[in-house]
């Protein structure tokens, strides 16, 4: 879903656009078509692309994790901020989960709660600093990134021999490898391509969709992002909304890190180091504005999926390291240019018809 708040100086839609844009201009629909078209193309070029166990399952597991990373960034973007510490906040949260499993023998669910709490807490501290000091989120989150980089490495080195917590709580291996094929209702089972770990992504998407689409707090978050001064004058407690956005961002980052750790095996300091770029990529491709005020939960999933599908397809085509990122960039540019051309053409059609 795309949720936005019109800036106060814009004229209401019904007065300026009596002719609604055709449904096929919808950016999410464009992304969906692109994802499906590329999947079909890769499937035709390499039928192995449709292998449920070897290709689709790991692809969807990756997309599920990176979507949560992108949602963490999207929440910060919704108030017109950015979270450059998304990877380190994730590492900070996961450190507590690993510590809980390794030293305290916590069950998986309790460790997950601890991980989410730690992520939310560090996000809240960041949000509070931004709200109280008025310093740009870019600077505060960058500083937080450096601070956590040192702290997390130091703690892992001090607390472990191999710079990782290797204890596997009961259930985490299953979370990593089980798919919907393992859930059966009588003789009917789910698809082996869909990983069970995606349950977290679905829950996060539903939660955020509800928050932004159906609640006053969600609308206040977007208004804070669209025009903080107007929001303040309208009685929106912008400081608290900034605090909430960064708390949720930290919580979602920690969740993504838990999913990544479950996906690879252990809780270590370096996993998720490269979360930052995919976090922006998924959110922005999906239609979330860098300037705040507009978010798209479903678009974030589709944006992340688009990148995942392109990369997996190129891997299957055997594209080497030298060319992989060039092709990835080119395909993304082509895909988004096509989307933009489609939007411009449709806009002109609407203008002509009026």
């Amino acid at each position: 879903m795309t949720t936005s708040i019109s800036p106060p100086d814009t004229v209401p839609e019904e007065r300026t656009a009596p002719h609604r844009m055709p449904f096929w201009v919808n950016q999410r629909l464009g992304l969906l078509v692109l994802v499906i078209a590329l999947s079909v193309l890769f499937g035709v070029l390499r039928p192995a692309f449709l292998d449920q166990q070897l290709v689709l399952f790991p692809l969807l597991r990756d997309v599920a994790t990176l979507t949560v990373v992108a949602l963490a960034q999207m929440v910060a973007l919704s108030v017109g901020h950015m979270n450059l510490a998304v990877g380190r906040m994730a590492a900070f949260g996961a450190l507590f989960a690993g510590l809980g499993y390794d030293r305290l023998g916590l069950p998986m669910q309790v460790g997950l709660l601890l991980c989410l709490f730690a992520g939310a807490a560090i996000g809240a501290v960041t949000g509070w600093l931004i709200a109280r000091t008025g310093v740009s989120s870019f600077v505060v989150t960058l500083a937080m990134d450096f601070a956590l980089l040192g702290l997390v490495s130091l703690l892992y080195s001090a607390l472990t021999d191999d710079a990782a917590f290797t204890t596997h709580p009961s259930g985490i291996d299953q979370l990593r490898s089980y798919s919907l094929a393992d859930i059966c209702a009588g003789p009917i089972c789910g698809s082996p391509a869909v990983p069970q770990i995606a349950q977290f992504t679905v829950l996060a998407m539903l939660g955020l969709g509800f928050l932004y689409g159906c609640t006053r707090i969600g609308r206040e978050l977007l208004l804070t992002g669209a025009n903080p001064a107007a929001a303040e004058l309208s009685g929106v407690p912008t400081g608290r909304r900034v605090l909430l956005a960064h708390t949720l961002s930290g919580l979602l980052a920690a969740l993504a890190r838990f999913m990544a750790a479950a996906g690879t095996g252990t809780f270590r300091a370096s996993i998720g180091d490269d979360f930052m770029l995919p976090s922006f990529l998924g959110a922005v491709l999906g239609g979330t504005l860098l300037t705040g005020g507009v978010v798209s939960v479903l678009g974030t999933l589709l944006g992340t999926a688009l990148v995942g599908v392109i990369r997996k397809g190129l891997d299957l085509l055997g594209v080497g390291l030298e060319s992989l990122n060039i092709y990835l960039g080119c395909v993304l540019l082509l895909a988004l240019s096509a989307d933009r051309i489609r939007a411009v053409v449709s806009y002109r059609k609407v203008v002509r018809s009026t």
Partner: protein
Amino acid sequence: MRFPTRSVLPGVVAVVLLATGTAACTYKNSGAQSGGQATPAARTGGGAELGDASGTKVALVPGGAHPYFQPWKTAGAAAKKTYGLGAVAFDETAEWDQQKQNNLLSTLAARGYNAFGVFGVSPTDINSTFADLKSQGFPVASLGSCPAGDKDDADFCLSTDVQLAAYKAAKAAIAAMGGKGTLVHLTGNNVDANTQLRIKGVAQAVKESGGKVKLLQTITDIDTDLQTAQKAVSDLMAAKGGQITGIVATAYNPAVAAADVVKSTGSKAKVIAIDDDAKILSGIEQGTVTATVVQNPVGQAEIGTWALALLQTKQCTVRSPGVEVDSGSFVVTKANVSGYDKARQAKTAQLKQEFADKILSCG
């Protein structure tokens, strides 16, 4: 500021939802297998001559791009030709990310590769990857690095003993320093299990000096690229160059940087490097680098590919699955810089014999 009920409530709801999700939705797996390796059995006797292996497609997958792995490419191609394998791929697109490497391995499996030689990005995570591949029936070798801890879920590990190699390098440095002085250790990513082993190896050698050698500093996280390493070594020499009598570098970029900086500053510090980059070899010939510890990546790829083909064609099984084999490390000085490759080739031949006689069971 009042207690932010509205700010906290959505977070609490999200946490409860997520915790409920994980509690409710993990169900038993069917555990289907899709591959085709025979269950290891206690077969004995027979030679280790590889028969028809045209159906064997071996993938050699390093953790990412690094000069250390370049010999894998040529050794893999040579092994394909020598043993008549169906294909040997060298794929370095994992970009030092365990999740990307896992994805890459499954993609290669989908492309028809049925035996895997892997340098795991994360030594603490790679057992899960090996277990996944094995559960699908593929033979797997851990090449160049063994999993951290006592357990190895690959069929075998053929790797440099990194702690021993670091120990050898530090001993060589201490010997070059005349058994006393101040040593600096330059190495890679601090939060990597192999780096921790290297740190232990150097510490052990320093401890054995009985206090005559002091480990001034261990500088980590400078193997990302040559520029980072050069800056770190230049800063070090500017700040403490007068005190330093020995430098031991146990990662590639710091080794090349140390050789460069010592040469350009005219420092008297004894440098012990790692691997056989042209700059390091030239430094040894000119005397600016005292010695280097050379590893055996060619042997890892050549013997690893051959042994994987024997396992994939079911001609052999591994006697003790998860066995760890040292692929060899050699101290190269000015005295043996021109002929060290012969020692390496001899070690590779010895490894093949060892696999045929002791590691594999063929019948």
